[in-house]
Structure formats: structure tokens, C-alpha cells
């Protein structure tokens, strides 16, 4: 199989007749760097303002409420359109990395405020850091309002802080626990409840106000705090002590191992011990430099073996179909709101993925058998058929197969597509094939 095919399927969002995929590791890396430098295309401030207007309108009558709600919904749809557009039209590797790290630092859009903040989190905390260092990304993620709200840090008060004493409010361990368990060390690492609690005490002070992230000394628990054997802060603790602790925990060998394993499993679908240990060594030697980490992966010959073991997640499946059909940025801009709602958001949900709202802080399942289930595959088949009906007028099944899969299409699939009794059936067969759904 050509290297370009492997690159598009494994490190991008699938083949497209409009662009070719990078095949050299340094070119893939360069495209990720340029993706990380794209300015965010979201209007978070305007959306927060609209949310406030909506909350006010709740008390001023049904009409005002409906209008404000409609505006809010259409802004949420703009976000989906934006992410769809990036994935459909970009080189791919940068968008895939953004996706990987957004999932690593899962925040779910539970409720209207998080509905606004989650896309902002992806665009301002994750994407600019995908080719930076992991400690930098961790610091950005752990101090973004979406994370502080999602994992209840905004409700955590040092019991002996000024506010804690006055208002009798206390500690919430959620963020501290998930940073250690999910974001850095991994659950099999050796840390205990005492570490979690001390780390939670240290994190008090991280909070949110109307402008965004804020550090509140008044709710910060007086130190010093001993986390994993290291002491942070004195009688007063500041944001810099928290950042120091985040950096330290980010650079521990357990974190290196955890991240290396996740990256290898995410892109290759196998727990290759040799490759994981090579990545781990790179990570530790480069102090968490993500470009070096990706390069170690991409320069390994195992990274190019055309054995696709993963399943595309529902959103990625939809994106791949649009790419294969040669969709352009202006095509995505023209998708009707109802089609975005039902054909993208609703469809992904029926395939098992509630966009922006993973079930828990551990994000989406990497195991293909979690996605290719009877109901999940049934939803893909239904969607593929409906999509094929739409594009049948302008696409020939044989060309479409070649555009979508090139030399990744098996002889069996070529035979089936050629033997289909209608254009729609031929197009749909490509889209529901294992070759198209795996990566």
C-alpha cells in the first residue's frame, strides 16, 4: 500500500480527491505546527454574552426567551460547522492531534455554559499547544474555565483559607484526582489518597470569574503541601507553586509511560512495548517536547504498516465521507442548519458519539468493538445510504471508491461496488466497508 494512503487514513481524516497527504514525518509535523498557529475561529465572548442575555430573558417572557435560545442554538451550530470545516479541509494531522489531546483532557459540554466553553477549551488550551510541550499543555488545560467547571474545581475551597473559614465551604478533590489518574501518571501509577488530597489542597485558588480564569488567594489552602514527595508553597501558596507542581508531575516517568502508551494505541491500535518505551525515552529526554514525541512515532517503520486496527469514531467517519466526496470549505459553509443538526450531530449520536459530550472524564473508548456494535453499525449504514442518495447525482461509485480508499480497497470491495445494482448502493457500500471505517 502506498505510504500516502496510510498517512491519510491513519494520521488524517481520510483520502480526498482535492489534496494529497504528507508522507514524510517532517512534513506531517510541519502541517501540525501550522495547524497549531491558526488563530481560534470561535466567538466565545459573543457567545458568553448571548448566554447571559438568555438567562436574563428567562424572566422577561416566553418570546424573549425563545429568541435568545434560538440565537444560542445557532451559535452552537456554528461551532460544529467550524470543527467540521477544519477536519474536512485541513491537512489532517494537526486536527487529529487536536482531537487526541482534547480527548486526553476530556471536558464535556454538560449544560449551556460548558456548551460554550468546551469549544473554546479545544481552540485556546489544546490546539495552540499540540506541538508545544506537554507541561505547557497541561498548565493551559488545568487552568481553563471549562476544566475548572467540569471537574468541580470552582467548588473547591481550602478549609483553612479565609473563605473556607468564613463560609464553611470545603475541598472538592475531583480535578486533583483526574489530573493524576487520567491526565498525567495514569491509574496504575503509585500514588495514594494522601497525594490526591494534598494535591487538591494545593490546587485550591484556581477559579473562574466573568472574564475567565482567575487565581483567588482567598480560597487557597495555606501550605506547605507535599505531593508525591515534593513540597510546594509555604504558609501562602501562589499560582506559580501550582504551575511548578503541574510541571513536575507532567515530567515524571509514569506520565511519560502513560502518554506514550495512549499515543501508540490511539494511532496504531496496538500496545507495542518496544515502541512505547522508545517514545517514553524521547519524552523524558526532551522534557515532554511533543514534536519529538510524534517524530519518534512517525520515524518508526511500524507506524507505516498498513494494518488498520482502529475504528473511526462517528464524527471522523462523517468527516471522512465528506472528504471522499471532495467537499470544500464553502460546501461545509452551505450545509443547512437542519442537516447539521440531524445529519451530523444527531447521526453521530445514533452511532454512539454525543459530540462534545463524552460520557465521563476518561473520554471516548479506543476499542473498535465499542463503536462497531449492532446499533452503531446500523446507524452508519443508514447514514451512508442517506448520504449516498444525496451525492449519487454527481458521483460515480467506481471513482468514489478510488477517491475514498485508493489502494486500500480490497478486491472483494471493488468487486462488490462494481456489482452493486444502483449508484446509491455502490456509493453506500464503499462508505460502510471495513476499509472505510477502520484506520
Amino acid at each position, binding site marked *: 500500500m502506498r505510504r500516502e494512503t496510510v498517512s491519510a487514513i491513519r494520521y488524517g481524516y481520510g483520502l480526498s480527491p482535492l489534496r494529497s497527504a504528507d508522507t514524510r514525518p517532517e512534513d506531517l509535523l510541519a502541517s501540525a505546527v501550522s495547524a497549531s498557529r491558526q488563530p481560534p475561529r470561535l466567538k466565545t465572548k459573543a457567545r458568553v454574552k448571548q448566554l447571559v442575555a438568555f438567562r436574563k430573558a428567562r424572566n422577561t417572557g416566553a418570546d424573549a426567551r425563545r429568541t435568545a435560545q434560538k440565537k444560542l442554538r445557532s451559535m452552537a451550530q456554528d461551532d460544529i460547522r467550524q470543527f467540521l470545516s477544519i477536519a474536512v479541509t485541513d491537512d489532517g494531522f494537526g486536527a487529529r492531534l487536536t482531537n487526541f489531546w482534547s480527548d486526553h483532557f476530556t471536558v464535556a459540554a454538560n449544560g449551556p455554559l460548558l456548551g460554550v466553553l468546551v469549544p473554546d477549551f479545544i481552540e485556546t488550551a489544546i490546539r495552540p499547544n499540540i506541538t508545544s510541550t506537554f507541561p505547557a499543555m497541561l498548565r493551559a488545560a488545568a487552568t481553563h474555565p471549562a476544566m475548572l467547571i467540569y471537574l468541580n474545581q470552582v467548588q473547591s475551597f481550602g478549609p483553612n483559607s479565609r473563605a473556607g473559614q468564613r463560609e464553611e465551604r470545603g475541598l472538592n478533590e475531583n480535578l486533583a484526582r483526574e489530573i493524576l489518574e487520567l491526565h498525567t501518571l495514569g491509574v496504575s501509577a503509585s500514588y495514594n489518597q494522601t497525594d490526591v488530597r494534598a494535591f487538591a489542597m494545593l490546587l485550591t485558588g484556581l477559579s473562574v470569574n466573568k472574564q475567565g480564569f482567575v487565581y483567588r488567594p482567598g480560597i487557597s489552602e495555606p501550605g506547605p503541601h507535599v505531593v508525591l514527595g515534593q513540597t510546594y508553597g509555604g504558609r501562602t501558596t501562589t499560582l506559580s507553586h501550582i504551575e511548578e507542581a503541574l510541571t513536575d508531575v507532567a515530567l515524571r516517568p509514569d506520565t511519560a509511560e502513560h502518554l506514550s502508551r495512549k499515543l501508540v494505541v490511539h494511532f496504531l491500535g496496538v500496545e507495542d512495548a518496544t515502541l512505547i518505551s522508545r517514545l517514553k525515552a524521547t519524552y523524558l529526554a526532551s522534557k515532554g517536547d511533543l514534536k519529538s514525541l510524534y517524530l519518534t512515532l512517525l520515524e518508526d517503520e511500524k507506524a507505516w504498516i498498513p494494518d488498520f486496527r482502529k475504528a473511526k469514531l462517528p464524527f471522523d467517519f462523517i468527516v471522512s465521507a465528506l472528504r471522499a466526496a471532495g467537499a470544500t470549505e464553502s460546501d461545509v459553509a452551505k450545509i443547512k442548519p437542519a442537516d447539521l443538526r440531524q445529519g451530523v450531530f444527531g447521526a453521530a449520536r445514533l452511532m454512539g458519539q454525543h459530540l462534545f459530550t463524552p*460520557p465521563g472524564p476518561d473520554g471516548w473508548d479506543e476499542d473498535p468493538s465499542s463503536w462497531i456494535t449492532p446499533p452503531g453499525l446500523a446507524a452508519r449504514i443508514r447514514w451512508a*445510504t442517506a448520504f449516498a442518495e444525496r451525492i449519487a447525482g454527481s458521483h460515480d461509485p467506481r471513482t468514489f471508491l478510488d477517491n475514498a480508499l485508493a489502494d486500500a480497497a480490497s478486491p472483494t470491495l471493488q468487486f462488490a461496488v462494481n456489482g452493486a445494482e444502483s449508484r446509491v448502493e455502490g456509493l453506500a*457500500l464503499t462508505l460502510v466497508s471495513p476499509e472505510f471505517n477502520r484506520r
Partner: protein
Amino acid sequence: MYSRRSFLTRGLALGCSAAASPLVTPVSLASAPGDNRLVVIVLRGAMDGLDVVRPMGDRLLKSYRPSFDFSGSLPLTDFFGLHPELAPLTPLWKTGELSFAHAVSTPYRDKRSHFDGQDILEAGSATEDFGADGWLNRVVSLLPEARTETAFAVGHETLRLLSGSAPVSTWSPDSDLNLSPQAQLLLTKIYAQDPLFADAAQKAMELADLTDNPMSTRGAARAEALAKFTADRLREETRIAAFSINGWDTHANQARTLPNALRELSTAILTLKQDLGPVWSKTCVLCLTEFGRTARENGSKGTDHGTGGVAVFAGGALKGNGVLGRWPGLASGDLYRDRDLMPTDDVRRYAAWALAGLFPVTQSALTSTIFPGLEMGENPGLLA
């Protein structure tokens, strides 16, 4: 390829393709193993046992949770009161079709992670060192007459509880698929070399003919649809079914968040009872959660991840009502690590004794294969 469901196509699909297509296994009327039914509902997010089955007789409860309102509790025993949101279940309590076990937990301790807690609950193991299969799947593997239809995982998400080597069915009541015979043949061809796709497609086609209900995705209506579909299957060949109810992770404003989850739970149980009809008398419903929550409220009128909690049992197969288990007390020294309700029993014992009463599984299989290392101990007397 996908034809919209109509009387004609449906008739054709059944009439022409069912026998001919290798993708569709005709539903057999062979007898299923035994007559008893088990439903396991996984309560994801850690249900706060102390707020659901409230130890009203312990004066420390109110002092640990000063901002909580316990005034509407429904008396169960002279010590325990039920959360008022579960009022719709009180008729079942009166007829002996509802009971609880208090201060129970899995063997999972200390890290209080939802994901590990749920993994251990579903794996049925004593440690975090376990395989990927679930204990309910191992039960299926031991049933002599088990077929794919014997056990059903219901809903869109993967249920580890029922994952494993024994074949089980999965479906969600809002999935629907209707393919022409030609499309079925072509799919068989292109999926032949990828078993993951071949199996999923075959089951999808079988199941599409069994369901036709739209499902709401939210709250109690979702729970109702899941329970309805489950009851439909249990009235036929299915003997074991499982699904999840989420929303128990009440870190903040528990007075507002917990009732939503409780409403889903009571809707699910009442729907099962209603739709199972006479089969309800042979049914046991086990509602299990990964762990309990802290005895004291946290700084945001909620509770954090804890240890000991409550399991909920329902069904006509129960022996009677009761709050089972040994109550450890709430005094500082009685709590687990001065923080959580002390677990005084392994919740897997209740599941094991229920299994022993419902299905032909031996005690040695229960303590070696299904729940490795479990000590069965004395029968807690859950079932009649």
C-alpha cells in the same frame, strides 16, 4: 440500499430473505435455560446510598450534611427512610417486591475512580488486575442452554458487564435497519473478512425486525424505552439483561441533581414490572453502583466519591422487603478512613446468592469463575 420501512418491504424482507440470507438467523422457538429472569442495572457515577436509603435514626446524618433537607423522607423501617423521589416505588415495598442492602461495596478501595470502580464492579473481580470480560458474561457462559438471545446488553454504550467470550445480543431500542436482500448479500461479502463488522451487521439485521419504537434520548423517557425493550426481550427468549442509568455523580447541589437520576431509576423499575406482566413474578432486578459517596457533604452542597453504599433490589422473585446488611454507624471511628460509610459486606455476595437462586450455577462456579475469590458466606435471603 436502505428502504424505508413499509408494510410491503417489511413483508418482503421477512418472506424472501429470512430463510435465504446467511445474515439472518431465523428466530428459533427452542426452550431457553430455565424460567427465571435477571436484570442488572448499572448506576454509573456512584449513587449516594446515604441519601437514597437514609439512616434517619442516626443523629449524625444531619450534622454531617447540614445543608441537606431530610424532612420528606418516607419511612421504610424504624431506622431507615427512603428519598422522597422514590415514592412511586413504595407500593413495591409494601408488597415485598423491593429491598435494599446498605453499607455494601465491591472490593475496590481508596482511589475512588469512577472508571476503575465501574470496571471492578462489572468485572466482578477482587482486584484491579482483571481481564476485560464481565461477570454477567461469565454467568451466560456457564448456562447449558445459552444462546445469543439468552443475554441482552441494552443501549448505545458498551456494557463491560456483559462483554466476554459468551455470545450476547446488544441493541438499542431506537436503532432500525431494513435492507434489501441484495444489499444484505453484498454486505455479507464485504464483511466476510472482518468478523467485528460481520457479527455486528448480522445481529443488527436480526434485531431490526424486533423493534419499532422511537426512543427519547433524555431522562425518564430514555429509562422507560430501555426498560420497555428489555421487558419485551425478557418475555421472549432472553433471561438476562443489563443496561445503565447515568447521572449519579452528585458533586454539587445534590438536592437538585439526585432526583433526576432517581426518577430514571423508579421509571425503569416500574416499566419493567408493568411490561413483564406475569413474568415479573420470576424476575429479580439488581441495581448496582461502583461505590458510595462521602458521609459528609462537601463545599458545594454535594458529596464526593466514597466507599460503602447501597444496592437496590426489585422484582416478584424477591422474598420480601427489607434493608439488608450490617449497619456500621456513622461515628467518626466507624467511618471508612474517617470519611466514607464503612462497607460491612461485599455487594458481590448479594449478586452471587441471587444468581444461585435464579440459575443453575454451582457455588464453586460462583466463587471461582464468576466472582473469583468471593466468599459466599451465609445466604442474605434476598430471593424467596
